[in-house]
């Protein structure tokens, strides 16, 4: 097990992209955890400086339309993106894995029904639906996590299922059955570890998706006003006419952070795929 991890790390480390991604993510995690110590001002406090003041020594990223410090908002904003991104990805991956495992392992009519449901969920336009939910139930951060989790699982289910389908036919599963192992034992003790790589890759790719979706929702004004997020900063900037004011510092850095964090997870996912799929490694 440990040796397996060590070899995986060896392949992972070879990819500059993957290591870079990991570093980006770690920096943002540090930012989120240490926010109260890093932020020079209270992010929610108005008029700590003049309106729309450009970057200066006092305000390294300037101030917004209400005279709030942009850098402090950016630092606190990392919390929302990370919490929503990771928690939702976990919920979606858990649901997807359960559906995929059951569907792939038991097959038959259960598989048929579950895959039908998966197909339906895949065709429902997700973003407008999330916006509609936020409109009705209020853009509370837990609601957003719940909606993204409940509707984000189908791609995971598909991948886990196809992996299980091929594993099910292997000799070792047959041997387990011949030995009289119960379904529960085969699934949880033997199959689950074999799909753990796929599951990990899915957590990462779902996180990318959710970070972008959350930022998008906030950008449309459907986010929790009590928690500052990067998308929300851009929403306020656009509403207060920051573009025409030439106040690029109120929206460019916030979007850059969304892009960087999403890229970080994308690159990490790329690295995980390299470890999982030897064919991608190149000669």
């Amino acid at each position, binding site marked *: 097990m440990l040796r397996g991890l060590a070899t995986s790390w060896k392949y992972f480390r070879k990819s500059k992209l993957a290591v870079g991604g990991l570093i980006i993510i770690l920096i943002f995690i540090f930012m989120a955890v240490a926010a109260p110590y890093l932020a020079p001002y209270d992010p929610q406090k108005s008029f700590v400086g003049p309106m729309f003041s450009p970057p200066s020594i006092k305000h390294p990223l300037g101030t917004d339309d209400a005279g709030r410090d942009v850098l402090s908002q950016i630092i606190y904003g990392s919390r929302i993106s990370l919490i929503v991104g990771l928690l939702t990805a976990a919920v979606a991956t858990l649901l997807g894995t359960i559906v995929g495992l059951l569907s792939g392992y038991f097959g038959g009519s259960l598989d048929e029904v579950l895959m039908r449901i998966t197909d339906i969920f895949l065709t429902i*336009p997700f973003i407008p639906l999330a916006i509609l939910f936020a409109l*009705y139930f209020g853009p509370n951060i837990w609601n957003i996590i719940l909606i993204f989790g409940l509707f984000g699982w189908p791609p995971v289910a598909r991948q886990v299922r196809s992996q299980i389908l091929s594993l099910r036919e292997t000799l070792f599963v047959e041997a387990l059955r011949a030995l009289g192992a119960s379904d529960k034992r085969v699934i949880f003790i033997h199959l689950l570890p074999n799909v753990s790589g796929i599951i990990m890759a899915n957590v990462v790719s779902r996180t990318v998706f959710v970070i972008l979706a959350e930022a998008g929702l906030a*950008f*449309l004004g*459907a986010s929790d006003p009590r928690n500052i997020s990067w998308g929300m900063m851009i929403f306020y900037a656009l509403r207060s006419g920051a573009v025409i004011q030439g106040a690029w510092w109120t*929206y460019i850095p916030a979007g850059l952070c*969304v*892009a960087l964090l999403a890229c970080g997870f994308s690159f990490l996912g*790329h690295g995980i795929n390299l470890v999982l799929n030897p064919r991608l490694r190149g000669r």
Partner: protein
Amino acid sequence: MIGYLVRRIINYIIVFFAVLVIVFALPRLLPGNPADYFISTTFPIGETSELLKAQLIERFGLNKTVTEQFFLYIGNILSGYWGVSWRYFPKDVFTLIMERLPWTLLIVILSRVISFALGYLVGTIAAWKRGSKFDIVLQALGLTSMSLPAFWLGLILLTIFAFYIPIFPLGGAITSGLVHKSLWDFVYDVLYHAVLPVITLTIVTFFIDALVMRNTMIEVLGEDFILTAEAKGLKERIVMFRHAARNALLPFVTGIMMSFGLLVTGAVFVEVVFSYPGIGLLLMESVLSRDFPTAQGIMIIITLIFIISNFIADLTYTLLDPRVRLR
């Protein structure tokens, strides 16, 4: 083949009804009277609004049982009666959406065509020169572009090309107040306003399109007939485009049709950046003004666009691929 299509159609009908059920259930899951979500509480209470209120209660059966309401609701949606907008009171939601939809379709279709053509070309070349610098750069850019928020990209373009170097308009779909002298004037004005939104959407999809084409091409390049073509001494360009790319076209086309619906949701964000008056901007307006009927209507219309583009993908796949057609 017919069996496959029928299965798909049944699937799409279920999807459509599932969305209708969700949209129907949402206001009824919340405490309070569902009528509150149909009839604006913020708009002036005058004679028209009282009349309209009575009409809405009547047509959606808001004083009847939930089952009756459900059937009335389905009937109303299917017959194009989608309620009354709050923000654009007393405008009918269906009419409102149909007025805005062409703008969305315009930028989405334009960017789809451009991205398709460029992606086809670049993907083919990348696959041909697999492992080259060109190919590696494309892959890295593809990975990056998937992580870029479309609205942020749009904002950067807007800041540079409309604010600092004002060669394009800051927003809108046509110059307001301008009387167009001829049709060409009008077309020019429309395209001029569409440039930045279309470029933004294209950047978002282009790299992914190119990568899809590249990966399909690589599979085709492994086939024996490519080796035969090369052994016959055909020119490289001919083998590349006539033999290989053509065979990679089909999965590419189906993939692109399927992503059409996704692009419409992408357009939502881009429209907001450029104040482009499509259904995306309308969706944001309805979120901000808590215009429930319009938001619901947009959900339904986007679902329909998803379903139609997926179905066209199914159709092209079954009709164009003889291996599927003959089965």
